[in-house]
C-alpha cells in the first residue's frame, strides 16, 4: 500500500464510522452542531496521532500479554492532555463537549487502530493511518452535524440559512435526530456502494 493510499483509506473507503462502525457514541452525541463536530474531530485526531505513534514506537517493548492495559494507559494520557488543553484555551467548547472529551478514552476507533495497525506497523505508516482515520472520523461527524444543525436550528456553523431558519425541527438537534440521521446516512452509503460497486 502506498503512503497516499495509507493516508486516504480512512476518508471514505474504510471510514471508521460509516463502514467499520466504531466510535458511535461521540459521533451521535456531539454532532448536534458543526462547531462541536469539528472540535471533537480535532480532539480525537490528536489522541489518535499521539497514541498510534507512541504505541508503534514501543511495539517491540510492550509484552503481548498486557498490551491492552498498556494501550489504555497511553491513550488515557493523551486524552488527559487534550482535555486540559481544550479546557484552558477554549472553555466554551469544553463546556459543550462535556464528558465526551474524557470519554474519547473508550472510543473504540483509537483502541481499534492501536491493536489492528500501530502494534504491527512502522511509526511513519502509523502516523499516516492515524491522520487518515482522524480525518475520516471528522468527515463523518461533519456529515451528520451538517444535516442536524441545518434541519434542527436552520444554521450552519452558527450562521442562519435563509429558507431553513423559519421552522427548524428542534428534534433534530436532540438525541432522536442523531439516531435517525445516522441510520439514513449509513443506508445512503450502502446504496452508493451497491450502485457504484465501490
Amino acid at each position, binding site marked *: 500500500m502506498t503512503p497516499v493510499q495509507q493516508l486516504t483509506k480512512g476518508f471514505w473507503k474504510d471510514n471508521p464510522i460509516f463502514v467499520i462502525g466504531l466510535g458511535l457514541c461521540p459521533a451521535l452525541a456531539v454532532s448536534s452542531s458543526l462547531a462541536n463536530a469539528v472540535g471533537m474531530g480535532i480532539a480525537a485526531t490528536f489522541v489518535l496521532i499521539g497514541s498510534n505513534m507512541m504505541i508503534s514506537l514501543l511495539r517491540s517493548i510492550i509484552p503481548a500479554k498486557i498490551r491492552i492495559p498498556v494501550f489504555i*494507559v497511553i491513550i*488515557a494520557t493523551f486524552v488527559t492532555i487534550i482535555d486540559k488543553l481544550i479546557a484552558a484555551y477554549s472553555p466554551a467548547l469544553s463546556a459543550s463537549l462535556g*464528558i465526551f472529551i*474524557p470519554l474519547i478514552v*473508550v472510543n473504540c476507533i483509537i483502541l481499534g487502530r492501536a491493536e489492528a495497525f500501530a502494534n504491527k506497523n512502522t511509526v511513519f505508516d502509523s502516523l499516516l493511518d492515524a491522520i487518515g482515520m482522524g480525518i475520516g472520523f471528522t468527515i463523518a461527524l461533519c456529515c451528520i452535524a451538517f444535516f442536524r444543525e441545518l434541519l434542527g436550528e436552520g444554521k450552519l456553523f452558527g450562521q442562519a440559512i435563509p429558507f431553513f431558519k423559519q421552522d427548524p425541527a428542534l428534534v433534530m438537534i436532540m*438525541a432522536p435526530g442523531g439516531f435517525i440521521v445516522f441510520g439514513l446516512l*449509513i*443506508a445512503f452509503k450502502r446504496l452508493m456502494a451497491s450502485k457504484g460497486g465501490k
Partner: protein
Amino acid sequence: MGAELIAIFIVAIFIENVVLSQILGLCPFIGVSSKIDSAVGMGMAVIFVMLLASVVTWSIQNFILMPLQLEYLQTISFILVIASLVQFVEMVVRKVAPALYQSLGVFLPLITTNCAVLGISLINIKRGYNLIEATVNAGGAGLGFFFALLIMAGIRERLDISDIPENMKGAPIAFVTAGLLATAFMGFSGLV
C-alpha cells in the same frame, strides 16, 4: 432526602435514559440487541458493573484524588480501575456462581469498552453527588439501559420477519428505530 433519591432514580431511568437521551453505550445497544435472551444477559451485567464501578470510582475520587490534589489523573485512574474491576468480577463470578457465569460471562469483557459505565462515573463526580446519590443514579442508569436494550431487542426480533428495503437492513433500520424510541422517551421529560 428520600424524595430526592426517588427523583434521581426516576430521572436516571426515564428522562435522562443513558442510551436514548444521553447517547452513551451505543455499541452494546446496537450489537447485542438482536435477541431478547442476550439483551437480558447484557442488561444485568451492565447494571451490576455500573453499580460497582460507581461506588469504587466515587471512593477513589473523594478519598484519594481530591485529598492529594491529583484530579488530573481522573481519566486514567477511572478507566484502569473499571477495566480491572470487570476482570475481577469475571473471575469471581466464574468461581462462585458458575450458573450465573454461563449467562453473563460472555458479556462481561465487552463492558470495559462500554462508555456508559465510565460516563455515569464521570457524571456522578461532575454533579457532586454523595455516595448514596451516586449509587442510586448508577442503579437507575443501569436499569434504564436494561429497559432500552430489552425494548429494542423486542422490536428487532419483529423486524427480522418484516420486509425491509435491502440497503436499510441491519444497522440502518436499527438506528432509525432507536430514533423513534428516543422520541417516545422524550415524552417522559415532564415527569419529575
